């Protein structure tokens, strides 16, 4: 599903090169559940951005669902995301001017052609995450947990083959966070979507089937690594 080889990312910071990721390699099998952990500034988010094709590496390759995303243009990567990738963000990132249902519809409408009726699919998903009756609320009218559930529904809207979650519980209280994670796990099981989670919450990481630990841009521990 996801194959990463010798991924390196160097940023220019204050005119000096800053290596954020050093030759990271890993494989994630279809339907897998990977957690990336590590302290702040260790390169977790950078790695996530590169895996999802939001950014291009300085060197190394990322193959996502069989495609080498290093060889794609920015807009081709956008289309790939639209078809195969789902996202859940720490800060929810719902579009404030759209209702819950409209937010969930966005990926489907962006894709243009779809077997699903976007509105119908959105309602289904919102019901699935327990938000029936809240379809026409705007993000500002929802609690943090509800917003994140809308985000989860949106992440699954286009039936992605892989879902990236960046600190999905970071802005939620303990109980609400646990509910959101449970929801992600359920959907992961039901639809066979691969799940890649970035977190520094050890309790959350423990629920993943595999955990890699980053320190200063390098993998220092990988529970799933084959010897």
């Amino acid at each position, binding site marked *: 599903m996801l194959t990463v080889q010798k991924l390196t990312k160097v940023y220019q910071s*204050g005119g000096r090169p800053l290596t954020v990721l050093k030759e990271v390699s890993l494989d994630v099998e279809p339907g897998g559940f990977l957690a990336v952990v590590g302290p702040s500034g260790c390169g977790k988010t950078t790695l996530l951005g590169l895996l999802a094709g939001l950014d291009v590496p300085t060197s190394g390759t990322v193959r996502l669902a069989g495609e080498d995303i290093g060889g794609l243009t920015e807009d081709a990567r956008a289309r790939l995301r*639209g078809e195969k990738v789902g996202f859940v*963000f*720490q800060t929810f990132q719902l*579009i404030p*001017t*759209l209702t819950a249902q409209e937010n969930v519809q966005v990926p489907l409408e962006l894709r*243009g052609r779809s077997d699903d009726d976007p509105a119908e699919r959105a309602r289904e998903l919102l019901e699935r995450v327990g938000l029936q009756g809240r379809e026409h609320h705007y993000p500002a009218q929802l609690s943090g947990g509800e917003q994140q559930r809308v985000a989860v529904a949106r992440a699954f809207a286009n039936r992605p083959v892989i879902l990236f979650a960046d600190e999905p519980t970071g802005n939620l209280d303990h109980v609400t966070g646990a509910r959101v994670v449970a929801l992600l796990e359920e959907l992961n099981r039901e639809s066979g979507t691969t799940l890649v989670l970035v977190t520094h919450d050890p309790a959350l990481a423990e629920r993943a089937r595999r955990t890699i630990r980053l320190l200063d841009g390098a993998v220092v521990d990988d529970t799933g690594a084959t010897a």
Partner: protein
Amino acid sequence: MNRAAVIARLAWRESRASRRRLVLFASAISVGVAALVAIASFTTNLETSVRQQARELLGGDLVLGGNRPFTPPVAALIDSIQRSGHRVAREVRFSSMAFVRRTEGIRLVDVRAVNAEFPLYGQVVTAPAGQWRRLAAERIAVVDTALLVALGARIGDTLELGSKSFLIAGVASEMPGRIASFEGFGAQVFIPFREVGGTGLISFGSRVHHTALVAMPDQRMARRIVYAHRPLFEKEKVRTETVGDFQSDVTDALRNLSSFLQFVGLIALLLGGIGVASGVGAFVAGKLETIAVLRCLGATRPLVFAIYLVQAAALGLVGSGIGVALGVGVQGALPRILKGVLPVDVRVTLAPGAILQGLGIGLAVALLFALRPLLEVRLVSPLQALRRAYETEDPGPRPRDPWRLVAFGALAIGVFLIAMGRAEEPRVGVGFAVAIALSVGTLTLAARLAVWVSRRISRLGGIAARWPYVLRQGLANLHRPRNQTRTVVTALGFGVTVLATLYLVQGNLLKQVSLATLNAGGRANVVFVDVQSDQAAGVEGLIRTAGLPVIQRVPIVPMRVATLRGKTAEQIGEIPQPQRPAPWTMRREYRSTYRDTATTSEKLVQGAWWGPRVTGPPWPVSLSTEVAQDLKADIGDSIVWNVQGQMIETRVAAIREVDWARFEPNFFAVFPTAALQRAPHSIVVLTRADDAGTRARLQRAVAERFSNVTSFDVALLQRTVERVFSRVALAIRFMAVLSLATGTLVLLGAVAAGRLQRIREGALLKTLGATRRQLTRILLAEYLALGLLAGVVGIGLAIGGGWAMTHFVFKLDFTVPLLPLAAVLVVTAALVALVGMAASREVFRRTAVEVLRDV
């Protein structure tokens, strides 16, 4: 799903929370669109009305006219036209002194002696009713109401014109034809055509206009007559005008005026464009996260760009729509406002062409200006949705976006094309575009300079560091991220430029004819014209008896050009352009004078004056620069003048620059005394009396003794000029105020755009212990600085522009009225401060906790 539908739907939903703000940005272009639509559709209506009422306005289908009675061949032609069944109205028109003995009132009037057929078209309405018909049989006069007021007379009084007296039978309350106030000055007096011979008013040198107005069933017939008898008309110096000529003349004049006014409207629109650009820029800046999320979810860059472009287009349409509605409303009110100024009754109808054009131009301007800020949405990385941390990471120097250059080019070309589309001549369009580019360029530079200075001040130690904190903080606001300095300075400064330029030009023009100038230094303020040689001693005697000085005595000799460099007018006509002299120079009657020195209103630019022992023929002659240029005459060229049938041979010896703006007798051609003193001539006598009563008594005394002598009270003339001018100025000022209104709207939009950031900063400052008073002072410092900057640069540009126009276009001296300009500066700064403070109310209203919780 259809792609366009997806874009439209996303654009619609996405705009939800910001529609009110978008409408505010859009309203910036509304004022300009309103002005364009109102002017364009009013012009269309006016043209239609002129076409429909052209016969009434001109007075006939064919008009023959000249400055002397029709010669026998022309009179025979007119008779033959009349005999073939066409109605012919006759008019002799001249200026004269009118006198009412009962009230001792005296005024210079515009006498129109008309026959029974006059007017051919339309109705004269008199009060009391039915007096017009009496002109055919009785010796009565129908006068303007204004004359009765000026003379203190009433209906039934006797009006004396020259040696004849007329019973004032009524006033003309409605008169078909051109409006009186622009046709020379002085009220109109209608008398019977047959009475004109005996008034003794028409003497040598009088300016009299003879007209025959012919009614014809169709225009072609009029054109045929003009065409068939052109040689006769040219030979006999008869001017012809058909309804068709008249229509196209009026239409041309209207178009020129409309084109000028539309340029002012266009300036307002372009100002609005700057507002749109700043609004869209701020709007996009607030949407970065949303855009990043859309990009994460699979939206391509073109798609995201399309979503916001659609929003900008919708904004443009809404703004233009509001503008069109406003424009149509204003246009409906215009005929009422301009009543009495317009020569026709204007029927207001919707002009679909003007409306569509307004919508189109508004939309185009909105899109052109929105393009550059919109390009930013393409550069938003999806990474920005992941974490804000990425925003603070230094991305290194930003790559050059070639599309920015494209957007800038599109804007420049678009503005240029729109300007060309409004201009009647390409030169004007280019000039306009260049002037706009220069002004905006200067303002932008000034704004950048201000940002730079403000940054330097913040980093400076020394004196600046000891300034009060609120002042430093306020000034620092000018350069901080997302500042509105450039927008406000450019838009408002531009508005100030337009307003102040118009003010300066108008002020400098009016100054030339102002009472203060006219009365300065003992200049003449009463002028007697058409004084015959044998009357000069008498007139001067009356002046001296009144204890007044004879300031100047100027002989006037009427003449025409017979040959130029040995060629007659006909032969000159065959010279190819551009060497051919202008036709008017060969046709006109020159009213020349003779003297042997230059006056104070003249400056010798070429050649030399003749000495006291000048001999001829050929005599030396001095031409004014205008005539020399249009005659294509140089020093040494020979000109033969026809002076009442006697040929006088001359050579051009001197070319003079003449200050025509002074109310003094000035001349195209000046001859040596020896050359003309025996030629038949009339005399102009000038005197000066400080008191209006003395002036009136003197005029009366001269009119009683010399009925053919006409006199002007310069002060009265001055008031007439000012009145005419003030009406034109009203229109110009209205347009200037439009520009300033737009500038204010832009300012409002700019302040609203930075609102959120202000509120947050305000909250933070409050948290850190800033008092309300301190916050107020910080904002006040910032807005006052912005207002002063916009005002100073705008006024500076206006002084440059005003000088250029006064100097190059009107060829007048230019002075800068410091006090009014200082007032403009103060008002600008106060306006910016007021609007800025009003729009920042929320900074004070919301508590710190409330704001910080939102963040």
